[in-house]
């Protein structure tokens, strides 16, 4: 199989697998007071320091969670509640219109159930945030802003957001910023302290660590209300017995991936450029969505996202899958139906073109062979998918 869906999940790094496997033999709850508990706690705290060093955060700023989605929910809801509690006028939530569903749906829930007023901030044709709109929205009523949420890099089209500008603008008005850095972490240089963000979400399985573990980085002075109550294991912000083996694997993956970042990013950008050139050569009217880059501060090095006019993305995915090439159409609803992407719609693509889109994403195991297989398969797949689309249209008019 040629796996080009690393943005969905990427294989564990062998070193992370080894460390995690070893710790699965350990007995001990990190919250227990006896020797076994202390040993498990030591595993967690060493991992916390290791992760902090890799991602530019103090160990005390790291709240381990059950994954990126939980981290995003904790940040959005927790920041909203604590900011509103401090000043009841703070009910506005400003979020980019291209956020991952973990942020998008949490924000929408606050709007539907918690009295929040939601402002969806526009992006341009490349998916980049409109900074003037951000500043205008904050300035229109600075005292009413609870928080700003802007992802570091987009999971679908790979566009990198001007996160430092976002933080700078928000800081001028004293407004906290949350950023979903699940895709950006380890592909880009991500340093939490230097970023000035109030909170930032990362995920284990997107960087070569295990599934089911993530972290919310919470600045030392930032107040966040918990969403999961219980033993208060993580700074009283998150409860639940800590998964020491997964946390250890997560931290090892982060350390290694960050150490290899520059070389890896360069290698993947090269593969990505070959993929883009190959796909456009095979399907001349294919459109590269998102910022063309190629600089890493504009487009994630491992992302290539295309619209194939006249095709249905789900037909393309099936045809490529049958040829051993794994890619993604973006998000699907709970029944498994491919949805027109809110990201592409926000970028101004029409719904039909957005349904014709596919994402290819590379990772640490990607090779020339993977790219060659995708390039070889795409031309015939597009031709067939176009015929299928026409056949269905013809049957409609019968």
């Amino acid at each position, binding site marked *: 199989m040629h796996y080009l869906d690393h943005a969905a999940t990427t294989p564990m790094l062998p070193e992370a697998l080894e460390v995690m496997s070893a710790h699965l033999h350990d007995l001990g709850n990190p919250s227990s007071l006896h020797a076994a508990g202390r040993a498990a706690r030591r595993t967690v705290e060493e991992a916390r320091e290791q992760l902090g060093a890799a991602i530019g955060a103090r160990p005390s700023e790291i709240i381990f969670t059950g994954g990126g989605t939980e981290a995003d929910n904790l940040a959005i809801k927790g920041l909203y509640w604590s900011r509103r509690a401090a000043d009841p006028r703070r009910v506005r939530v400003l979020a980019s219109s291209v956020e991952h569903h973990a942020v998008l749906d949490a924000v929408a829930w606050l709007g539907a159930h918690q009295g929040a007023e939601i402002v969806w901030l526009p992006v341009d044709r490349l998916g980049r945030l409109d900074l003037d709109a951000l500043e205008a929205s904050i300035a229109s009523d600075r005292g009413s802003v609870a928080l700003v949420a802007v992802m570091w890099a987009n999971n679908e089209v790979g566009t990198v957001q001007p996160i430092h500008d976002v933080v700078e603008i928000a800081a001028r008005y004293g407004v906290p910023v949350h950023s979903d850095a699940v895709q950006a972490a380890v592909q880009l240089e991500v340093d939490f302290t230097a970023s000035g963000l109030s909170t930032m979400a990362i995920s284990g399985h997107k960087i070569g660590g295990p599934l089911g573990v993530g972290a919310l980085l919470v600045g030392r002075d930032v107040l966040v209300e918990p969403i999961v109550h219980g033993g208060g294991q993580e700074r009283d912000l998150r409860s639940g017995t800590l998964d020491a083996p997964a946390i250890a694997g997560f931290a090892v993956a982060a350390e290694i991936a960050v150490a290899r970042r520059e070389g890896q990013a360069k290698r993947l950008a090269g593969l990505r450029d070959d993929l883009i050139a190959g796909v456009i050569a095979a399907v001349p009217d294919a459109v590269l969505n998102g910022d063309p880059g190629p600089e890493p501060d504009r487009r994630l090095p491992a992302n290539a996202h295309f619209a194939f006019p006249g095709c249905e993305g*789900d037909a393309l995915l099936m*045809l490529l899958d049958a040829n051993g090439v794994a890619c993604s159409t973006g998000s699907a*609803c*709970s029944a498994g139906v491919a949805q027109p992407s809110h990201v592409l719609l926000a970028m101004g693509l029409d719904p039909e073109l957005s349904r014709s889109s596919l994402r290819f994403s590379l990772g640490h195991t990607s090779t020339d062979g993977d790219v060659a297989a995708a390039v070889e398969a795409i031309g015939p797949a597009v031709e067939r998918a176009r*015929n*299928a689309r026409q*056949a*269905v249209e013809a*049957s*409609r008019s019968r």
Partner: protein
Amino acid sequence: MRLLAAMSGGVDSAVAAARAVDAGHDVTGVHLALAENPKSFRTGARGCCTLEDARDARRAADVLGIPFYVWDLAARFREDVVDDFVAEYAAGRTPNPCLRCNEKIKFSAVLDRALALGFDAVVTGHHARLDDGVLRRSVDPAKDQSYVLAVLTRDQLAHAIFPLGVSTKAEVRAEAAARRLAVAEKPDSHDICFIADGDTAGFLRDRLGSAPGDLVDTDGAVIGSHDGTYGFTVGQRKGLRIGVPAADGNPRYVLSISPVDRTVTVGSREELEVDEVIAERAVWSGRPVDTSTEIACVVQVRAHGMVTPAHVMVDGDELRIRLAESQRGIAAGQAAVLYGGADDDTVIGSATITRTASADLVRRRDSTGIVRIA
């Protein structure tokens, strides 16, 4: 062959796909998402388009070890089945949405897409047989679905595979259990999948609004009122809300529905009896027939109705079907399906009923003998 197995999440389509795999075909499973909002369709195991059904279909595909995808046909289903259903009732006819779904969705939109994508045929869990491309009843008469498939053309049937027609439903369930398919005990689906609560009249009222009119007897006397002709089906007895009892004290039935003047005509059980059926849009999918002469066959005029011997004359676009035994409750919009004969359960063809006639009425009422249903 490369086969696309339509998997509803029910026991039949799961076993059909399994048999196709066993036969050595290269099978891909597809669940058709037909609801634009899956939560609005039937919940639990009764419908064909719920989240649970999508999950069940996926699990069955996992067990069979075949690739599985969900195809979104919700917009097409709304246009070709749901909107058509509402329009047919509005026109005073009684549509069969399962038949329309086979004609327009499963063996048109899905089949055409499958063929274009490189598949050779579509496999479904329908209870029917194909003998050399000719549609035939299932060996299980209680579960036979040839009636709702008879609308398919020879070309459509040439790309269809029905692996279950040689088995009874009990055998299919036993096989599902033996194959460890979790859907083995799932209840059969019935009714109309897109009407969540089973309240067809309410569903139609929401879409067509209130259109009050008169309930009249065969002499034209007004004996009641109604909120909309679409709440009635020919042959219906319950819910007529007639204020005046019949002279003979016997129950009365809906005889005809006329949406144009919003009139519903009721009468006795005898007046419901029909000797002749007129149908149009004929599809001849079975053994070659000489349409220039009278065709002797047996005919079925309802999905779960009785069959009767009949003689069919083709008159231009119309079929005139003379029934050897009169039938009650034949509604315009339903299909008349022609089968070979008493000992021949292959389908000759199918057509859509437009109106009926009764020899009795000719005698008694000295009229033209044609009762216009719509």
